């Protein structure tokens, strides 16, 4: 099994739906330790993506990823826009001119995305950012791949690790992003960006996520 353009488009559509569904929850997480716009930002971006997503069928995966990147960069703003935008740009580069991506190819794409986020945002694991979901996801995917798993299992492993990484942000004190201004007070809250990153990996794994699973309450 491999990830085709159609499969990629379906996953992105699933992600856009998840963002729309959980917009308010992401806003509330961001109200607690940020400025209350993460859900709105992501929703603005992925609504714009969804509007032209179908037109991308027939293109290569890299083209789809580039389209998503450019749309995010020009619609989202805030921290999330450049971070996810750069992630998708790097992912597109990693996808090269392949018509479809096997498990190793998908993992390269995801790792490139993480690299993009880190290069743009300079955050390390433990800083209480989206990196805390993204990094363990790529790591778990890599281990699954190395252990001989197929694409579905690799993506499942990545999504599980992203979920865990998201939850693990709760006790952390933020060192990057807006939450860092709160110092100690940023503890005991789940990072909104880590939450939207888990939703991304969940969408790639074909998984629908409930509000209960996302909430830090």
């Amino acid at each position, binding site marked *: 099994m491999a990830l085709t353009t159609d499969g990629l488009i379906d996953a992105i559509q699933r992600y856009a739906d998840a963002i729309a569904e959980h917009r308010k929850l992401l806003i*509330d997480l961001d*109200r607690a330790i940020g*400025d209350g716009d993460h859900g709105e930002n992501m929703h603005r971006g992925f609504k714009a993506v969804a509007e032209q997503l179908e037109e991308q069928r027939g293109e290569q995966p890299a083209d789809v990823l580039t389209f998503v990147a450019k749309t995010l960069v020009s619609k989202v*703003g*805030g921290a999330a*826009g450049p971070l996810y935008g750069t992630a998708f740009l790097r992912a597109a580069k990693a996808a090269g001119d392949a018509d479809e991506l096997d498990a190793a190819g998908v993992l390269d794409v995801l790792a490139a995305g993480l690299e993009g986020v880190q290069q743009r945002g300079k955050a390390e694991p433990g800083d209480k950012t989206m990196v805390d979901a993204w990094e363990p996801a790529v790591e778990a995917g890599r281990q699954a791949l190395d252990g001989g798993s197929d694409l579905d299992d690799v993506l499942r492993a990545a999504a599980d690790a992203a979920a865990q990484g998201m939850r693990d942000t709760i006790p952390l004190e933020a*060192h990057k992003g*807006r939450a860092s201004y709160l110092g100690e007070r940023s503890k005991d809250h789940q990072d909104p960006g880590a939450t939207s990153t888990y939703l991304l990996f969940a969408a790639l794994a074909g998984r629908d996520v409930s509000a209960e699973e996302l909430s830090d309450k």
Partner: protein
Amino acid sequence: MKKLINDPENVVAEALEGIELAHGDVVRVSHDPAFIVRSDAPVQGKVGVISGGGSGHEPMHGGFVGMGMLDAACPGAVFTSPVPDQMQAATAAVDGGAGVLHIVKNYTGDVANFEMAAEMAEMEGDDTRVRSVVIDDDVAVKDSTYTAGRRGVGGTVLAEKLCGAAAERGDDLDAVADLCERVNANVRSMGMALTPCTVPHAGEPSFELGDDEMEIGIGIHGEPGRETVKLEPADRIVERLLEPILEDLGASEGDRTLLFVNGMGGTPQIELYIAYRKAAKMLADRGIEVTRNLVGDYITSLEMAGMSITLLKLDDELLELWDAPVRTPALRWGV
């Protein structure tokens, strides 16, 4: 949520229409990508000065576009930094051949988006010379390379005025950018809130606060502050803000300063003057001269009640640039 709006989605777009209708003598408005530009831009041979940031801080930045201050401002969604397309388009619109200065408030999003704008311009072979200066004057946040660093707050208003004046008198790009860094090195701010504010698309207050509590060390995005403390008399609150500023700035006897007492949006002016009074007395007690001042709502957080204090050390050049004519919707003198 109680707001004079039609639809949370259209808040920024409709306000831009209003600004265009009200201030057509001073500015023009581009709606997509969204930016406000002085009506005579680009001014040939003059360094262009632009800024941008989330909306909800009005009059910053759009109210500061005009002769002697900004050439253009890029408004993002409420509390969300604008996108690179806006910055690229604004940069092109104000490029009079002498380069463009980007004045960026230090927030992850603002910095990253301005950075991407520069990268994209480079990739597209645009040869406009751009320099970026990041303002980070908020002493409520500890400055460290391991964190996002200090926020850019009230000092930004002063930097925009002073750099705009330098550009207007004909300074070249490096001179204007270096001046901006000098301003940033000599300005410090700190803020507090009596109430939260409500972002239109969030629909709920940005934080909860007891009837007898206030937030000390807030920024300008409705985020909670460093600490929640019991409400105190205005004079004590001013001490809480001005003392860390003085310490960090190292202001001392004989220094000349500009004292800026800023309302967060929902503070009656009468209260700002009570605070100004105390701040001016504290400075007088320390032998620090308040040579210029600014009192009012210039960098706000929607309808938040609260204030920030900003202190800038002045020298002869900064004083001359401050006094230079300015004509924008929100700041105007000498013309």
